[in-house]
C-alpha cells in the first residue's frame, strides 16, 4: 500500500470504474489505431499511447495530442480484441491533463469543456452561439469568415436561436449540480 504509484498506476487508478478490461491486457495489436478515423492527425497512435502509459512516459503522454483528437466514435472499442474501453482511456487522459493543468497550449479542448459547463449551468441546455466565441479565434481570419458564413446561413434558415434556452426549474437544477460539483457559487446558499 505504501509504494508510490507510477504514472501507469495513476491512470489505472483513475480508470478504476471502467467497464472495459484493464489496459494491462492490451496485446499491442494495433486494431484501435488501424481503425481510428482520426489517426493521421494524432502524433501517437492510440496503441502507441497505451504502450507509452505502460512505460510510464508521463511527460510524453501528456504532451501528446492523441486524446484531444479522439472523436469518441467508439469504433476501436467494439473491435478491440482485449475488450479495452479505449474511448474511456482517452476521456481519462483528458481529465488527468485538465485536473493537473497539464494540457498543451493551443488545443482548445479544455477551453471548450469549460465553456460548456458554464453554459449548462446558466440555462440547463446547450446553446450553440455561446460555444462559438470560445474557439473561433483559434482558426484565424479565414476560419472566422467561413464560420460566420455558415452561421449566417443557419441564422437565415432560422436554425440558430436568438436567446439562450433556459429550463424552468433552473434553481433546482443548479442546486442539483451543486451536489455533484462542489462549488458554492453554483447554488447560492447551501442548505
Amino acid at each position, binding site marked *: 500500500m*505504501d509504494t*508510490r504509484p507510477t504514472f501507469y498506476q495513476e491512470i489505472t487508478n483513475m480508470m478504476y470504474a471502467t467497464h472495459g478490461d484493464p489496459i494491462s491486457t492490451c496485446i499491442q495489436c494495433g486494431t484501435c489505431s488501424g481503425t481510428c478515423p482520426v489517426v493521421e492527425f494524432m502524433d501517437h497512435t492510440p496503441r502507441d499511447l497505451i504502450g507509452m502509459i505502460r512505460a510510464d512516459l508521463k511527460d510524453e503522454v501528456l504532451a501528446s495530442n492523441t486524446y484531444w483528437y479522439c472523436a469518441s466514435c467508439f469504433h476501436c472499442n467494439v473491435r478491440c480484441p482485449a475488450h479495452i474501453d479505449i474511448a474511456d482511456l482517452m476521456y481519462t487522459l483528458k481529465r488527468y491533463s485538465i485536473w493537473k493543468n497539464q494540457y498543451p497550449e493551443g488545443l482548445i479542448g479544455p477551453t471548450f469543456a*469549460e465553456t460548456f459547463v458554464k453554459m449548462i449551468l446558466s440555462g440547463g441546455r446547450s446553446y450553440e452561439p455561446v460555444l462559438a466565441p470560445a474557439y473561433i479565434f483559434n482558426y484565424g481570419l479565414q476560419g472566422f469568415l467561413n464560420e460566420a458564413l455558415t452561421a449566417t446561413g443557419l441564422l437565415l434558415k432560422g436554425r440558430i436561436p436568438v436567446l439562450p434556452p433556459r429550463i424552468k426549474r433552473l434553481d433546482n437544477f443548479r442546486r442539483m449540480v451543486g451536489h*455533484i*460539483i*462542489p*462549488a*458554492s457559487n453554483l447554488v447560492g446558499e447551501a442548505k
Partner: protein
Amino acid sequence: MATPKKLLIIDDDPDFVDGIKTILRKAQYEVDVAYNPKDGFKALETGQYDLLLLDIMMGRGAEGIMVARKMRKDTRLREIPVLIITGIREQIAFLFPGEQVHPRFVAVDELVEKPIEPTLLLEKVEALLKEAKVKKAKAT
C-alpha cells in the same frame, strides 16, 4: 501516547500524497494510502482508522464526495472524522474564480484547499482527532 493514531489518505495524486504522508509520519502518525475510491473504501471497511484525509477529484469526477456520503451512511464508519483536502479550484474551479469552494456539499468535518501548509495540516488533524475523542467520551 500508547498507540499511534491510524490515518488513511484516499487521494489519486502521488505527489501530494508523498508530501503529506511524510509530514504526518514525522508527527508519529501511522499512515495508509489508497489511490482510488474503491480501494479506499475497502481499506476503510477492513482497517480501523482514526481519521480520513480525502481528496475530491478522483476517478470519473468529484468521487471524494461519494466516499464521504457513503461513509456517513455506514454505522461503523460514521464516526471517523474526515478532512477533505482538495485541489478542486485548480482542477475545475475555472468555473467562477475567486469565489469560495462550497464548504457543505456533504457533511464533512473540515475542508482545506491544496496546497496545504504542514503546520496547518497537523493542526487540523490534531483538532479533529481531539474533537472525535471528546465526542466518543460523551457518547459512552
